[in-house]
Structure formats: C-alpha cells, structure tokens
C-alpha cells in the first residue's frame, strides 16, 4: 500500500525540552488516520512539522513520497489548523476564493465554491463577513476551505472541537465521504469520534506509544470474565494450558481470561463442555478508550 504520510525517526526539541522523540509511523493512502495523545504530547508540534511550519531536529517527514521541506509537498494538502486561519474581515465566499486562487492556475468557477459552502451548510451566509460567524460556522468554513484544492491529503487539527452535535455529525459525515479518495490525518481528544471514523491510529506522548489498527489491538486486549461456582482452580489451570489464552487470573471464583476476541465464543463453549458450573460470563469488549488509557499509562 502506498504511503500518504511518513514520519521517520522524527525528533524535535523546543526550548531545550524534547517534544517528540524518534517518532516513526506511516499513513496509507485513503486511510482516515487518528492522531491521539494527552495535552502536551506533541500532536500540534507534529502537525506543524508535517506542514513544515517547524523543522525536524532529526528524521524526515514525507507526504506522498515528497519531503515536507519542499513547498511542492503541500500543493495537494488541504489543512484545517486549530486556529481555523480565516480572515475575519473577508466574507465566507472571499475566504474560499483566496485559497482557490492560491492553488488553482485558473480560479475555479463559482459553482465549486458554492458547492463546498453548501456541503458545510453555509450557502446562505456566503456574503457575510466571517467576524459575524459563530465558532462552529468558522470551523465548518475552515473545513470547506481545506477541500478547495481537491486535496489528496487532508490534515485537520481537532475537527469537531467547538461544534454543536449537528455540526459534529456533519463534519464526521464529510470526513467519511472523503475517505474513498483522500487520506485524512486528524488529531483529536474525542476518542468516540476517532473510533467512529478511523481504522488506524497513532498514540503519542512525546514518544510513539502505539501505531496501528484499532481492531487488531482491541482484539489483542479482549477478555472474558466468568464467575465459576466452587473452587476448581487446579482443574482450570490444567485445562487453560490447552487453550490459546494470553493471560488469566482467578480471584474469588471469578475467572478472567485475556484472549483474542476471535476465539472468545470457542473458549466459553469449551468451559461449558468441560463441566464447569458457570454462574455468569461476560465478554469484555475493548474499545479505543481502553487502548488509549492502557498505552498512555504504560507509556508514562
């Protein structure tokens, strides 16, 4: 799979403090990729490095195989930074037209700008100056503006922050619709959004803590909790050795098994077939929250 974004051994210090330490990960083309980490973890610095606003101390960043040090690397990158970057004294339409003029030799016809404004439900406010917009409207306009160059890579910092539920859903729908032919790289604190939109994530806290598939990691961290009648620890230990169990604990007759989610059903069936008296059984589904807290706590 071709890589849209690559961070290779990226290290960055600011004012003598390490902000990013040997970060290496890549984002495949047409992936929606979530970038997570606690406050001060280095997410915004990473985005600044990606947009070449800052220079790496060591390492390299590539966008579609082109080093970010070359201005051309940003020709097909749409971006929506945390501050929106909208000109308050210009109208919504003029803000869009400015970026249209930047990226397109021949500025596009008005219909494309109007189409994008309609996409973010701002078609009726195109002639209003942006200083009269609410925060949510500004965010939506910033996202529409990021799409003006038909970007192959879209970088968004906190896409749903400051939006009402309708606005959040709208932005998520836009991101979902883009995922067919655009790589979306976004940082967020909202794990529900990331879980809904992304298949892959990177979690950082100065160092890279995790990078990869949410589902496969969730699969690795799945567990079964079963309450068993009577004390049958010896029997359990002998039996469990035969199964594909990653780890198990027995405490006050509650058996907890760390196992892959794929074979949870098989293990439960096996427990019943071996004549264990099971009072109740819970499949513990691992979410992105679990992964996030596990890796950030272990990492720190």
């Amino acid at each position: 799979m071709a890589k849209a974004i690559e961070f290779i051994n990226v290290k960055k210090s600011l004012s003598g403090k390490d902000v990013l330490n040997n970060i290496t990960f890549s984002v495949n083309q047409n992936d929606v990729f979530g970038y997570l980490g606690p406050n001060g973890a280095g997410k915004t610095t990473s985005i600044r490095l990606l947009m070449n606003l800052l220079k790496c101390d060591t390492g390299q960043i590539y966008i579609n195989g082109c080093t970010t040090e070359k201005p051309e690397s940003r020709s097909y990158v749409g971006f929506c930074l945390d501050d929106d970057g909208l000109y308050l004294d210009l109208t919504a339409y003029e803000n869009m037209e400015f970026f249209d003029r930047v990226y397109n030799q021949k500025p596009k016809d008005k219909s494309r700008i109007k189409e994008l404004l309609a996409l973010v439900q701002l078609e009726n406010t195109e002639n209003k100056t942006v200083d009269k917009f609410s925060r949510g409207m500004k965010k939506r306009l910033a996202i529409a503006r990021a799409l003006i160059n038909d970007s192959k890579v879209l970088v968004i910092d906190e896409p749903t922050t400051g939006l009402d539920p309708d606005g959040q859903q709208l932005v998520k729908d836009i991101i979902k619709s883009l995922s067919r032919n655009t790589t979306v790289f976004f940082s967020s604190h909202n794990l529900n959004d990331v879980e809904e939109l992304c298949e892959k994530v990177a979690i950082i806290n100065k160092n890279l803590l995790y990078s990869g598939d949410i589902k496969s990691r969730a699969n690795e961290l799945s567990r079964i909790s079963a309450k068993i009648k009577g004390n049958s620890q010896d029997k359990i230990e002998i039996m469990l050795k035969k199964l594909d169990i990653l780890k198990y604990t027995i405490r006050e007759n509650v058996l907890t098994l760390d196992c892959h989610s794929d074979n949870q059903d098989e293990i439960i069936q096996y427990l019943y077939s071996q004549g264990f008296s099971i009072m109740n059984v819970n499949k513990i589904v691992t979410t992105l929250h679990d992964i996030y807290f596990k890796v950030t706590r272990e990492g720190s």
Partner: protein
Amino acid sequence: MRNVMKAIVWKEYMSLRHRAKKLVFSVLFAVLYLVVFGIIKVIQIQNTPQMQSIIENIILYVCVTTGYLILISLLRFSQEKTQKTLESLLCLPVNPTIILLSKCFAAVLLCVMISFFESIILHIIFILLSGAIFVSLKIIVCNLFICALLYLTFSIINGYITWCMNATYVKLMSYITALTFIGLVSSFLYIISFPFYMIFLTFLGIGIILLILAIFFLRKVDKEKIVLNLQD
C-alpha cells in the same frame, strides 16, 4: 509561486475594500492638513522666483508623507498574528519570504499608485492656485521612485520585525513609525524651503539605508522563527 503572490495581493485588496471608508477618512484628514499648509505657503510666496521650486517640494513631500500614512494603515502584518491566520498563510506552498514580499507588494503598489495620482491632483491644485502652468515630470518620476524605494524597504523591515522578532522590538518599531510620521508632518514647512536636490538626496539616503536593512532581514526570514514567535 505566481499564483500565491497574486492571491495574496488579491486578498489584501479585498480586505482593503471592506474597510475603505475608515481608511479614506483617516487619510483625507492628513492630506488636507498638509495641503492646506502648502496652499498657505504658496499664497505667501506667490509671484516670487522660488515659487515653482517650492511647489515642487510641497508636492513631493506631501505625496511621500501621505503615502507613508496610507502604508502604515495598509500593512497588516500584526493582524495576521492577532487574527491567527499567520500559520495558515505559512502553510501555503511557497517559502515565507515570498509570502512576506507579497503582502508588502500589495500595500506598496497601492500606496505608490495613490502617491502618483496625488501628485497629479496637487499639480492641478497648485496650477489653479498660482496661475502658472507647469508640469514637473521630475517630481512625478522622483515621487514614484522615492515612494517605491522607501515604502517597499520599510514594509519588509516592518514585516520582519512584526513576524520574526519579539514584542519589545515590535513596540519599538511602532514608536519609531509614529515618531517618523510626526517628524515628517511637523518639519513640513521647514523642509519645503530646502533645495529640491537636498530633499531628494535625503529621501534617497534613507531609502538606501532601509534597503540594506531590508535585504539583511529578508535573508533571515524563517518559518520556524515566525511560528515560535507566535507562541511567545
């Protein structure tokens, strides 16, 4: 690169259109102030041999001074910081020097154009006032040259200090900018009595010093410096 430059110039122009009224009123006041003093001076020296040379001096001086005032209003480097648009601007696919130059170019182009038209209008006013028919090409050309040199170099220095240096230097620069304007306005009647070549050479000398500084600063424009300065 040309796209980006043209787009930035267009953006500056659109921004100006939205606040044209405010700008026109503030500039008109300064122009009228200087022109009225100029008219009084011309009336005092009417029909004397040095009248035409003083009129030439007045036209050059008024055009350069009012152009400078307009330039200060048009240069919007600090607004990019306060409106938090600077990072987005720096993400455009060109190097930061081009971005800074484009912003300067937009403002300077307009100021030079205004100065040019102002010099024509002042010619007409003083022809009507003095009764002597003259068109001083020397003044029109020198005015264009001096304005382009002074405004462009000043804009570059202003842009560099606002974006790349810390708040202390920005304040210092705004004091110097204001004092320069006050100095220009208050020395108006005194300076217009000097020979033309002295006024021209003074402006030229200042322009050359500013040019050296501007080239020095342009070579030091750095995105990282600008971004880190934003966080201070």
